[in-house]
Structure formats: C-alpha cells, structure tokens
C-alpha cells in the first residue's frame, strides 16, 4: 500500500498537529499521529487525550488505509529532507517504509484502531464567527491565565456567550483580562465554558487574523472548533469560573491617560532593576506627571519620569511591572486609560479608543 506525496504537502499539516503531541506520554500510542488515507487525501490526527487536532493533506496517490506513526520522528524526517522532495510511504505490516530521493527510513507502526478519539457529547450549541474575532479574543486575554494554580478552573480561559456578547476572560487571581465581541451574534444561545490552558495556547497559535467563518461547537464536556479542513477539539475544565464582574473595580475617582508605547518602554527600563521575584515598581502619580521607581535587593535603583494626563490627587501605588507590561503589549490604541482609587484598590486599564478589552491589576505592597 503506497502513499505518494511531496515534502511540502506533508510538512505543513504535520507541523500544525505536532504541537499537540506531548513530549512525555502516558500511553505509547500518544506519541503517534493517526493517518486515515483515501485516494487523494490524508486525514492527520494528533491527540494528548485533552486536545485533539485533525487536519488534511492532499496526496498524489494513495489507497484506503489507516495507521499511526511516531509524530516527532516523522516531522523531523520531513523537515530534514530537501525542498520539494517526493515522498513515498509504504505500510508493510508493523513497519512503514519512507522513501524520499536517496533516503530510506523504516518506522514502527501502531494499529489505528488503538488510537484514542475524543467524542463530543451532550446537546451541542454552536455559533459561527470570523476566525479573526476568536483569535483577537484569545490574543487579548490568554496571557492572564493561571498556570498550575490549585484553583484548577483558573488554569484556562473562560469563553461565554451572554446576552448576545461573546466574551473571553482569563485571570490568575492577581490580574484579569477580559475581551468582548458582539458582531453577528444575534440570537446565539448562551453558554459558558472553560478551555484548558494548553488548548488555548494551541488555538492562539493556529488561528489567523482572517474573516473566514469558523464554527464553535460546544458539547457538555468538549468544545470543537471547525476551521475548513482543520478540526480542533478540546476537553473542558469542569468547574465554576469565579464571578469576574465582581472584581472589576467600581467607584474609581482617578483617571490617568498615558501614551501606551512610551509607558511600556519606560516600564521595561525600570523593570531591569526591580526585585526579580516580585517585580514591584512604585508609581507616583502627580498632576500630569508619573514617576516610576524600582529597587532591587542589591540596593540599586531605577527612576523614570513620564508625561501623563492627570488632574487628581497625588497617589503612590505599587504594581508588578510584568503584569502592566503584558497589558500594554496587547492592548490596542495609542492612548490607554488607567482608572484608580487608592493604593489598596485594583486598577482598571482600558484603551481610550473604546477597545472592547478591559484589564484589572491588583496593586502590590511596596
């Protein structure tokens, strides 16, 4: 049984699904990718039991056959071959022979019937959105997801439809990122799901900023995102996301407008001499002036002054500089609004241009 294709046809889909394969697996077959071949197409699937990614590759010729091959090795072989090499793949029982130019590789095959699949269950709710819209929601929020937090429901991204708004929320308890989209969602059924961290990172990498329509299908335990030939499936985190609306500060009486890029650069410079562990920086807000101050345990010091638009009382407050830099990196627009109350209350950050993303950052005792 022979499959004939080219390096390029194979490499692109392989690299795409390759990211899902874990370096250390609990089952040997999880190191493999599943290939379902028919006359002119290959369906390629990778899974880690949490996330499953399926895509297609066109081939010059093939027969109907299903098998699995070691993902890492296959990708490395394709990558190492010269451009536009013709590849022929021949399954001979428990071995696969790959011939490309004057190279010949024999790889171990595991049976396709043993390859685990994620079944989507329960009543399926679905919406269709533009690919770029989902990408934007993820890009604007994913950095705030928790990592290995005891509160397992924070180790992921909340995606919900409520009152015709599609919203993504991520938080690790210290900061929160929230982004919304409304276009074309009239009449969509409400849902609320938490997509695990790894799946979110994978999705963020895969999605393009295009206006192609994609489908999001939500089952009771899974979410499936269909992008043309490519189908992404992930298990969901079974838990209750905290009430994020409650932590969005209200009653802020101080409004500061800063130039996004100059603030980001100033913070970056100041951060060099902040405490490496806590990364605290002191913010000194005065009329139209912001002073940034950082100290490290070696008693070294960094100081910056920045022109801002501010007409309120003086305020001294500490923040983890890393959290602010991350917000300023993803937020859109040239001018950013910081809404503050006092040194113990969290800060709300949004774009002045009315971007639909909002960020909350907890202050730090300095």
């Amino acid at each position, binding site marked *: 049984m022979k499959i004939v294709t080219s390096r390029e046809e194979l490499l692109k889909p392989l690299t795409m699904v390759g990211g899902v394969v874990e370096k250390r697996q609990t089952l040997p077959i999880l190191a493999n990718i599943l290939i379902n071949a028919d006359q002119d197409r290959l369906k390629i699937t990778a899974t880690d039991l949490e996330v499953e990614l399926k895509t297609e590759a066109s081939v010059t010729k093939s027969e109907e056959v299903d098998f699995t091959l070691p993902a890492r090795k296959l990708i490395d072989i394709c990558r190492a071959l010269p451009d536009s090499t013709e590849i022929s793949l021949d399954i001979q029982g428990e071995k696969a022979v790959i011939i490309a130019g004057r190279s010949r590789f024999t790889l171990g095959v595991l049976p396709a019937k043993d390859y685990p699949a994620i079944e989507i269950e329960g009543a399926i709710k679905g919406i269709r959105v533009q690919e770029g819209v989902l990408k934007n929601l993820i890009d604007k929020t994913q950095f705030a997801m928790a990592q290995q937090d*005891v509160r397992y429901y924070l180790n992921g991204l909340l995606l919900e439809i409520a009152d015709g708004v599609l919203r993504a929320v991520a938080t690790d*308890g210290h*900061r929160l990122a929230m982004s919304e989209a409304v276009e074309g969602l009239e009449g969509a059924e409400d849902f609320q799901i938490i997509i695990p961290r790894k799946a979110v990172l994978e999705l963020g990498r895969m999605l393009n900023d295009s206006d192609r329509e994609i489908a999001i299908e939500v089952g009771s335990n899974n979410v499936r995102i269909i992008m043309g030939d490519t189908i992404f499936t992930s298990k969901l985190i079974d838990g209750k996301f905290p009430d994020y609306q409650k932590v969005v500060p209200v009653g802020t009486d101080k409004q500061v407008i800063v130039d996004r890029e100059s603030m980001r650069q100033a913070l970056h410079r100041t951060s060099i001499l902040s405490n490496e562990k*806590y990364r605290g920086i002191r913010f000194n807000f005065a009329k139209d002036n912001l002073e940034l101050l950082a100290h490290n345990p070696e008693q070294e010091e960094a100081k910056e002054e920045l022109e801002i638009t501010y007409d309120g009382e003086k305020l001294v407050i500490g923040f983890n500089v890393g959290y602010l830099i991350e917000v300023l990196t993803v937020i859109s627009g040239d001018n950013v609004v910081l809404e503050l109350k006092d040194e113990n209350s969290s800060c709300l950050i949004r774009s002045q241009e009315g971007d639909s993303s909002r960020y909350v950052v*907890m202050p730090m*005792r300095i």
Partner: protein
Amino acid sequence: MHLDMDAFFASVEQRDNPEYRGKPVVVGAMPGRRGVVSTCSYEARKYGICSAMPISEAHRRCPDAIYLRPDMARYVAVSKKVMLALGEISPVVEPVSIDEAYIDISGMERLIGEPVEIGRLTKLKIREVVGLDCSAGIGPNRLIAKLASEYQKPDGLVVIRPEQIQAFLDPMPVSNLRGVGPKARQELEQLGVYTVKHLKTYSLDVLRGYFGDNGGQHLYNQARGIALDQVGTKGGRKSISKESTFNEDVIDQRQLRECLRGLAAEVGRTARSKCLKGRVVTMKIRLDGFETHTRQKKLRNATSADGVVLNIAWNLYQESGFAGRPVRLIGLGISEWGGSEPMGDLFDDPEECKREEHLYAAMDEVTKKFGRGKLSLGLKKRD
C-alpha cells in the same frame, strides 16, 4: 558541645525495668508486623541490629531479644529533664531531637574549667538527673562536635581542639560526613575515595560536578572541618510532617484519603500551635518494595489550614501516577515558612478568611480539651 543520649529509648526501658538490663532490647515495631527498629540496646547491636532496620530483619538476627513498643510519653518526660539539666550547664541549648542537643560552651572555661571538664560535669549531671549514659563531643563547630560525640560511643567524651581538626577528620570514612548516604558513598567509592583525607584532594569544582552545587560545596567544607559554629536556642524547625505506615498495603482510595485527612489535621494543628504557615506542601508515598517518592507543590500563600494541605497533598498523590498501586506508607508535610506574597488576590474574601481562622482556632481548642480525633472537619463529598 554535642550531646547524644546512648541508645536512648532502650536505655530508658532498661533503667525502668531492671530485668531488661544486660539483655538485647529492641524498641520499635513488633516482630510479625511492619515497621522498623527505633532504638536498640548495645547488647542488641552485637547481633548486628541497628536503628531503622526493618523489624523482620532484626527478629531474624536475634529472635530472643526483648521487643518493645515505644512509650513516647515516658521518653519525652526524660528528654525534658535532660534538656533542663543541660540548661543548668549553659544558657544556650539547642535540642536537635528527643535525645540530642547542641550546647554552646564557648567562654565558659573560666566558669567551669577546661572543655573536657565541662564535658565530664555535663555527663555527671545527666547521670544524676535521669540515670542514663550519654556521649559528648566538644569541638570548635557543630560538625566536629557531632563527629566527636559519635567517636567513642557509648559513654564517650571526646574533645577536639582547632589544631586537631584535620588529624581527627583525615582517617575517617567519608560515610561519617553529613549528607553522605549509601548513594553518595557509592559514588565516592567509584572515585576511589574512602577517607576524608582523600576527599580533601578533590577541588571544589570537581565535587560540584559530581554532587551538584550545594552537595559539592557541603562535602568540600566538611572535608576541611568547616561548619557553622552557632548554637541557637530557637533551633528553627524547617518542616512539619506526619506519615503513617500501614500494616498491610492499601489500595483503597477512600482509606488513603482518610489517612491523609488525619495526617493533615495533625500537621495543621502543630503548625498553628507554633504560629507557622508553610508555602510548600509535600506528599510522601512508599509503595511495595520500599519504593519511596515525594512530590511537592509551592503555594502562592503560606497556609496552615488542614483542608488546603489535604487537598494539595491529595492532588499531588492523584497526579503522581502512583494512584492505584499498593501503598505501604503515606505522609504529608509543610515547609518553607513565610507569609503571603506582597499582593492580594482578586477573589479573596476577607470575611471567608476570618471565618476559617475562627473555625481552626475553635477546632484546636476542642482538640486540646478532649484529645485528638474527637472533632474533625466534615468530609466533602467527592465523586
């Protein structure tokens, strides 16, 4: 000065039960059940029995020995008397364990006399107060003092002056040094290193290469007799942990969780009584065949709450990949004392925190009054 009671548990038993004297006494688990030797008398050591040996092995070596379960309450009482007596010698006493202490005797020559005199007096005093033998080692730092007290056990008294350090250390087998267990010893032996003298010929870089930055530095220092010379009364406990060995291997998840719950309650109570909160939770597990593993998780905020410790330890167990295998021993603990990060949490509810504090304070009060295990936190339903 380092002072170590000789075969402490066994000696207490021999003191209180004259019929045991001169006979091999083994304190620890009972033969036929699981567990290890805690302490054995010097008569028992002649049969090759030693501390931490599985009890079955001890029984094989000497079936006629007197086997006793430890009576901790009695030993603690004796230990307290010993520590009090040491306090009369010097105000700076650092108990290391129930039968061991460091005593700072620097600058006491004028008061009592030569170091050897101080040692003699201390041993005499302990014999007077509790009627037991001990071994004392006197040296310029903790390492030398400890090695000196081990040098002439039992009933030893060894004084090492600063100029004698190298002569004292050089002929010692490397396994006498701190942190040289079977593994490190094997590695050293592969290098052909058996004695401290030989170890000294290796440079710091080489030792670091073999034993890691810290391990290498530690060995390098020890070979030269370099160690801390401070004796602190505070001591400074590094961790609080509890573990439990099962009579028969356990697979039942409910039973394991139940066991961890009890241990978490103990750890939490001990930590709270000492006003300590830990930032690291450790889960320890020993499977069949003595295969032992530990897993740790670092927390964002230090805790002493039973519930938090239990849940994290349980998750560590679940994620360890050992769930479902027969368990011989399971334990948990907390370490790395500290407060919270200098940053609050968006979802912390101050009311809830206060409520929890009250809850644990009340529980500790009840436990103090009515004893362990009378009141425990309800089990959350898990499916």
